């Protein structure tokens, strides 16, 4: 018999924290109700999964089928948009295998919404309004292009620097083991970001990091005026990455090409190849309205609001306690 310790049946979140979460969810729903954005539900158990090489699925096997616990409701919500749903939002659980730490839990709560007719800039404004409403404070907003942050903080031109130059920079910044790590170019950017740039973002303001490099576009459109960058943004507050948004890529062929490129990279890294979500591609072929969308990690919003340090304190039973 498994003998558990006497206290590990208890929840990580205290009753006041559970009340704060209930209030947060209520306020999110109030915010979107007042703006006529429709709440929707989509499957957690899906036939397909995003190909993003940095996100690994929980795979659920049946005798006759394989299912994937969704890492975000994005593909389903875009199918709703293509079916003329109009503006929609969803509060759902999301699953990412292997992501566990103070600021990560393999199962977490996402708020995701889509706005037909909005640009990424319009959506950033709405996200800032939501954050002020949820946190109940006046928050300054600053927009910082990704490349400019590298230029200011590390005197690095990310468009000119190859993997070797990024590695040299990591070594010069005395990141432990930088000299021994074997990384692809974007992973060097991720390492420099996590070690040198993210910790320097001012915690008291809403910082929108914008114009990610095209190699990290994910599902965002490339910027027409500078195709080296994509219309992707992230929101940082209180030292936490809270949200990721896109001017959504609507071109079915370009989307399919990115999925295939992801799978090539997966293969190179020895990761499983994932089946293409053909129904999602078909919806794009039918026509996704021009729209912007964003996903917000609600557990981290609660963490910032309550000034706590670990997701275990804001989830009833984080995976370690599940």
């Amino acid at each position, binding site marked *: 018999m498994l003998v558990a310790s006497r206290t590990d049946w208890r929840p990580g979140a205290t009753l006041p924290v559970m009340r704060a979460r209930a209030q947060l969810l209520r306020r999110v729903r109030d915010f979107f109700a007042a703006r006529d954005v429709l709440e929707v539900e989509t499957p957690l158990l899906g036939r397909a999964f995003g190909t993003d090489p*940095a996100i690994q699925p929980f795979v659920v096997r049946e005798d006759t089928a394989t299912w994937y616990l969704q890492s975000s409701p994005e593909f389903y919500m875009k199918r709703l948009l293509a079916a003329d749903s109009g503006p929609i939002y969803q509060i759902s659980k999301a699953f990412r295998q292997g992501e566990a730490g103070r600021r990560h839990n393999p199962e977490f709560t996402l708020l995701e919404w889509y706005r037909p007719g909005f640009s990424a800039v319009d959506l950033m404004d709405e996200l800032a309004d939501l954050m002020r409403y949820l946190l109940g404070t006046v928050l300054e907003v600053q927009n910082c292009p990704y490349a400019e942050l590298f230029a200011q903080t590390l005197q690095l031109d990310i468009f000119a620097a190859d993997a070797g130059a990024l590695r040299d920079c990591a070594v010069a910044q005395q990141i*432990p*083991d930088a000299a021994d790590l074997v990384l692809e170019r*974007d992973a060097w950017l991720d390492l420099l970001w*996590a070690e040198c740039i993210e910790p320097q973002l001012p915690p008291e303001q809403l910082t929108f990091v914008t114009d990610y490099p095209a190699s990290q576009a994910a599902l965002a459109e490339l910027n027409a005026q500078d195709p080296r960058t994509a219309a992707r943004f992230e929101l940082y507050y209180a030292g936490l990455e809270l949200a990721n948004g896109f001017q959504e890529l609507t071109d079915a062929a370009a989307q399919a090409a990115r999925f295939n490129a992801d799978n090539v990279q997966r293969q190179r890294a020895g990761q499983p190849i994932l089946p293409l979500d053909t129904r999602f591609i078909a919806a794009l072929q039918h026509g996704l309205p021009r729209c912007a969308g964003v996903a917000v990690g609600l557990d981290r919003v609660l963490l910032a609001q309550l000034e706590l340090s670990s997701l275990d304190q804001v989830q009833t039973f984080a995976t370690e306690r599940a």
Partner: protein
Amino acid sequence: MANYSTSEFRGGLKIMLDGDPCNIIENEFVKPGKGQAFNRVKIRNLKTGRVLEKTFKSNETVPAADVVERELEYLYTDGAFWHFMDSDNYEQYQADAAAVGDAVKWLQAQDRCQVTLWNEAPILVEVPNFVVLQVTETDPGLKGDTSGGGGKPATLETGAVVRVPLFVQADERIKVDTRTGEYVGRVKD
């Protein structure tokens, strides 16, 4: 030999790094939203005692260190080695000065120590948190002073020197916290 993936890293896990057994002290998972995940890990090299920081790509694997912890009884030293015995099977082990380290200050025969064995050889000796030792030498305190303020040095039977209150006299037995090297109290038999 088993391998551990970074997702199994926990405080206390013993792994091999650059040929040395190491103990994980702290592990932090770091991942920019859509990017490469890393583990920022603080590690103690069990052979040298040095603490170092390492960066791992998440899901990298490292070999497990064939390290076991045993409670062993300290027997004696011959000057070069410190000899321990497993009271269950009477098996004996000898530890060198590097393995004994600071514990040497507190070791006395029959102490039950936590000994880390790597490939069956001791690499780390930890004494109990509290030990009772006899004072072999200390200046006589002022008569009537029981305040304990200030204190004075006292040499113990193992050679360790700790600060004790003025009322503590030679030949008395005292309890010491080995983690801080501080006097805790007198022990009356």
